[in-house]
């Protein structure tokens, strides 16, 4: 599950999708899908025909309405007669919310360490590299599961774990960017103006490296979505009565033979979301690379 989208193991940038510009039609599709997904999650209360835990035991495991299922159940029903379409909308909301929070935690933590390493160098760089070595020594899935076993499941821990996935990519990126910003001269000039380092980093350096950071966030995001849904699929992430896309697939798996739609509907949504974010991230990076560097 571990992936490094921005650099290969020897630190060189590799191109995930293509060095060429992707066909604009594909990008337009990806952006529209993401817009629809975000809107669906945000407006789930309005858009969903039913609540995500509304049961109707009379219509269990019925196929989607377009395949002859009950009217109004676009994606069919699950083993408790809940509307799969409504559940997908709410799952999208929770999954995206958790994934975004985890991403922000990871990006924040990594960025902070990157700044510390670049500012103080020496000891902080050693700490950073020891942490990176340590994290690379345990497969992330095993690490996450162990933390859940030790401390028990909670949303808080879950979000922290998602954040720990990929933080080192940000830390390394930010350290490199800050070091090169320091060489550009404006950091020294600001220092000479007598500004406090915190002001220099937050008001001046951060906005200057923000674009590259944002690209990295987009490139890491699919991995976080897959991790979130993977852990939830195993029953170790988001717990009922809340719902998430991974959780839906996990319970839908039991009914593969009789009601494939219970797993295929959320699975397709995860796939399309991860794919769209990847495509948009690549496109975004190509645009940033093409921009004149000041």
């Amino acid at each position, binding site marked *: *599950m*571990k*992936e*490094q989208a921005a650099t*290969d*193991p*020897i630190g*060189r940038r*590799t*191109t*995930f*999708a*293509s060095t*060429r510009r992707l066909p604009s039609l594909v990008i337009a599709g990806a952006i529209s899908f993401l817009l629809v997904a975000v809107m669906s999650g945000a407006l789930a209360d309005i858009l969903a025909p039913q609540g995500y835990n509304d049961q109707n035991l009379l219509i269990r495991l019925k196929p989607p309405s377009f395949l002859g299922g009950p009217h109004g159940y676009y994606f069919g029903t699950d083993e408790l007669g809940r509307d799969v379409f409504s559940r997908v909308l709410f799952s999208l909301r929770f999954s995206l919310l958790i994934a975004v929070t985890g991403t922000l935690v990871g990006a924040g933590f990594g960025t902070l360490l990157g700044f510390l390493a670049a500012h103080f160098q020496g000891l902080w*760089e050693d700490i950073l*590299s*020891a942490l990176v*070595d*340590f994290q*690379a*020594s*345990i*497969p*992330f*899935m*095993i*690490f996450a*599961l*162990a*933390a*859940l*076993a*030790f*401390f*028990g499941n909670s949303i808080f821990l879950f979000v922290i774990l998602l954040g720990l996935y990929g933080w080192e990519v940000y830390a390394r990126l930010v350290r490199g960017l800050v070091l090169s910003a320091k060489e550009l001269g404006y950091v020294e000039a600001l220092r000479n103006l007598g500004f406090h380092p915190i002001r220099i980093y937050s008001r001046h350096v951060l906005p200057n490296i923000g674009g590259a950071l944002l690209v990295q966030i987009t490139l890491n995001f*699919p991995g976080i979505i*897959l991790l979130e*849904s*993977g852990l939830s*699929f*195993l*029953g*170790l992430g988001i717990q009922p009565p809340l719902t998430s896309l*991974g959780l839906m*697939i*996990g319970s839908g*798996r039991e009914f*593969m*033979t009789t009601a*494939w739609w219970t*797993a*295929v509907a959320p*699975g397709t949504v*995860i*796939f*399309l979301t*991860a*794919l769209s974010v*990847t*495509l948009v991230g690549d496109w975004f990076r190509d645009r940033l690379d093409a921009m004149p560097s000041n």
Partner: protein
Amino acid sequence: MSARFLIVRTLRALLTLILVVTFVFLMLRLAGDPIKMLLPEDTPASVVEQYRARWGMDAPIYVQYIRYVASVLHGDFGMSFRDGRPALQAVTERIPATLTLGFAGLAVALLVGLPAGIAAAVMRNSIVDRSVISFAVVGHSVPTFFFGILLIMLFSMSLRWLPSSGSATWAHLVMPALTIGLWNAATLARFTRASMLDVLSQAYMKTVLANGLPSSWRILRYALPNAAIPIVTMLGLIVGQLLSGAVIVETVFAWPGIGRLTVTAVAGREVAVVQTIVFLSALAMVMANLLVDLIYGWLDPRIGSKTGGMSR
């Protein structure tokens, strides 16, 4: 490869393992009473007392730490809740199944990922290249568990060619190996392509190719050995991906390996089993990375002579 390089790398590996042991010890202390967490609830009081004494729970923390490290070195990780056996035994008996799956997955990844990456690089911008790129992007967006379920639906339910779960025959291995292998093949194809493109764009390669049509023999003969250096570094990453992937794939296909054991152990909060798995997988990763370093140093003598400075 210099002896110094070898020593530095080995020391780093050992240091990392010590870090892992320390980390687990701290987690155990933070999470609560380690004895309670490592022994089943119905453990006889005498056994509990025996463990308390052995780990010196009343002693200062550093003594506890040293004793903990000593017991880890002896392979004593506590007892499994479910059957009251030593946790190490419960884990080691699962290793062969996971190794089988891991090697099969690695074989799929290499057999698919390497040729795909090479072909994409050699036929850059062709339909082949585009297909490989699409495969890599799409392959990385499909959740492995979802892919596994789709395979089961297709091959077990519709076509009825393959068994959907268990590990009784070789046929059982096909779908889990494909699921875990294709995911990694996507990663590998991407890196191989990038690495090959890098080598092919270099001056000496242009000379080699200018001597005639770019025959596939020439490319394999001249470009691949150079492209192999960065690809080898991927393998450490892939071992981690295989282990992470095993957790999910073994659950989907009810494959009786370490991954599935991890999930049941976590669900039952069997900390003893979980910590054993953490140590063993860390050991596997560290060994894999050490091996990668050594192969790397052997492939590229310049690295070996420059010692460990490259790590930062």
